[in-house]
């Protein structure tokens, strides 16, 4: 019976060493500060997604530098992190907690109810819908502000360029490769399709979904499929997955269009990008909070007019006439004379 005793010794020693090394109480780092603290909770895309979450973190970092506020960034690695992350933000003294997207809506509503004195904001989500409003559309929590984006307006602008480029290349077909068929994706494609067909009547718009926001190969497959159906320009609306779309466009010698952030440098043949400034949203609501102008129970809307939406660098291969046409669309949208649909029919 020598081995079991040996085992026990190892176990006991290990436990003792662990206890000694790790054991003492964690220091409570409660530093009293006069300045505002703003927290950002990511969804499970994490802050390393080169897009939606990371961009919002950039907005928070900018707010910290320019506004001198304290910031807390909390990453959700799985759904089980949502609630503890909100809890942690509030316990660390956050006056405003920003949720990075719709996945956090349910948790945010729970916390908004539980902590009426804390302010909350949510990216890409309106407070005029469940779970922040009741069935009659009445807003339930006056401490939650929605940050909404008119992505259809940027989608429209890239759609104009796409249709004109395809026409120039002797085709009549353009495509969009979405991640998953959800409203935040379809709002881009709705604007894209609408304005493409307005700019060049008779343009065929192929719309397919890769069912993924991460795996580039899946977007590449869908993109290749659309290229084989004659698409001359492909709009990627699938986050990181969409890099596959841009690569497929490169390989086929057609044009790709980036999304969310300026993706001009991510491939050789990027016509332009539809840009959604979620960083501006985070910055704006943090600034509101600091200045005591937080407007709970309402949405803060971002569009072409206030610079919350835009487009990225345009390839020099794009004829100036096309850009001029696009700018005329932009002027009409800003003036309110052109209404772009926000949902696919």
């Amino acid at each position, binding site marked *: 019976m020598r*081995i*079991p005793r*040996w*085992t026990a010794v*190892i*176990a006991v020693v*290990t436990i003792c060493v*662990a*206890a000694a*090394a*790790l*054991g*003492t*109480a*964690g*220091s*409570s*780092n*409660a530093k009293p500060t006069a300045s505002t603290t703003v927290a950002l909770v990511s*969804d*499970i*895309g*994490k*802050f*390393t997604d080169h897009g939606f979450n990371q961009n919002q973190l950039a907005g928070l970092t900018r707010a910290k530098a320019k506004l001198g506020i304290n910031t807390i*960034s*909390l*990453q959700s*690695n*799985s*759904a*089980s*992190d949502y*609630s*503890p*992350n*909100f*809890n*942690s*933000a509030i*316990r660390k003294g956050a006056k405003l907690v920003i949720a990075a997207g*719709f*996945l956090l*809506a*349910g948790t945010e509503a*729970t*916390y908004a109810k*539980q902590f009426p004195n804390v302010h909350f904001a949510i990216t890409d*989500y309106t407070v005029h*819908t*469940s*779970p922040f*409003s009741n*069935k009659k559309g009445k807003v339930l929590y006056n401490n939650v502000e929605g940050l909404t984006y008119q992505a259809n307006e940027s989608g429209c602008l890239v759609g104009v360029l796409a249709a004109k480029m395809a026409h120039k290349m002797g085709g009549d077909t353009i495509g969009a490769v979405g991640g*998953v*068929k*959800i*409203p935040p994706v379809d709002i881009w494609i709705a604007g894209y399709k609408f304005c493409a067909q307005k700019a060049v009547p008779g343009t065929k718009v192929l719309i397919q979904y890769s*069912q993924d*926001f991460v795996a580039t190969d899946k977007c590449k497959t869908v993109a290749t499929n659309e290229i084989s159906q004659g698409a001359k320009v492909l709009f990627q609306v699938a986050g990181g997955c969409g890099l596959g779309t841009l690569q497929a466009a490169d390989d086929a010698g057609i044009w790709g269009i980036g999304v969310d952030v300026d993706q001009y440098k991510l491939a050789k043949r990027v016509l332009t990008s539809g840009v959604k400034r979620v960083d501006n949203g985070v910055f704006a609501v943090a600034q509101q909070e600091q200045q005591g102008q937080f407007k709970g129970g309402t949405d803060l809307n971002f569009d072409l007019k206030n610079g919350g939406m835009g487009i990225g660098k345009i390839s020099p291969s794009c004829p100036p006439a096309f850009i001029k046409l696009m700018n005329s669309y932009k002027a009409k949208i800003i003036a309110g004379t052109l209404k772009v649909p926000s949902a696919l029919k």
Partner: protein
Amino acid sequence: MAEQDDAPTVAGRLALAQRAGGAAGPVLTAVFALLLGGFVVLATGANPLSTYRAIFDGSGLNWLFPWVSGSARSFAATNLQQTLLLTTALVLCGLAVSVGFRCGLFNIGGQGQYIVGSIFALWIGSSFVTMNGPLHVVLAIAAATLTGAAYAGIAGLLKAITGAHEVISTIMLNWIAVWVGSWLVGQGGALQSHANGASVPISSAVAPATHLHVFWGNPVLQGLDVGFFFALAALVVYAVLLNRTTLGFELRAVGFNPEAARYAGIAVARTYVKTMAIAGAFAGLAGAIDVLGWEFQLGVTDIQTSQIGFIAIAVAVLGRNRALGVFFSALLFGALLTGTSTRNLDATVFRPDLAGNLTLIIQGLVVLFVGADVLMLWLWNRRRRLRVAT
């Protein structure tokens, strides 16, 4: 010596590990994995000791020390609740993998069985809202457990009838579960929430009456629910089933040597099906407990990114497929996951975005060391024999 000849067989290795004494292998494996993880921490320029200490404190396990008091203690309590919530799911999914191993089956399908269980619990829980509360809970849990069992049973049945390898079939069943689940809660899916024009790919929430009772912490803010006791009970059931019942004996006999078991009159094919069904029941129960305990609703992305069933493989491997071992290794991984979260790990100690990967590294090392520590113990045994001989 006879055991030198049979060393390559699974049964031989298992017997060797057991002869070498229960806890030595797993403890050494964990220590080595943490040690190597420490070198990784060192390579990033951080201090491994203070990092591990921060992770330990972040996991809430410092709550067990009586000298932790005040706000640190209440922080520790919230953290420990999260660790134990993860432990609950990891124990149950770990048992789903373990029971397979004991029968010589490699059940990689824990994730799929977990998803099937959570979907059925979600469906029952979010429908029939006028039903009597306790009855509703029982129905949701029973449905999840049974469908989990049936789902895993498919892989068992395929193995029994056609000899299809369970590794392949359970992996494929995982994907079927992921995509059917995504379809159900996704845009236009049968379980998608349509409340007030919301059009995001998230399901409705389960009825408040079906929420499991929270016995520690704030019931609204994800405290620890009674599902934890289900996991503890499942460990007892597992130990009794394997060691004190005929089915358990048959299961282990098939695991050691299916041909010998068949020769001894055990219905091997039937045992495969039963074992997979038991595995699926554990994983399905885990899905139900998560949905009714803290998750309440499921989004497409939640289903697609959940990893619990895969971490459970490392749990089973490290726990040597024994009830007590599974409990402690589930606790270890639950603590690592909670301790390395960005909310708990101070960025000045170790970069939290790297810390998440530290858990993955340790998980990988644990699986890698399975073979290595059996080798180590074999060398140890040889060394002893040599010493006796001289």
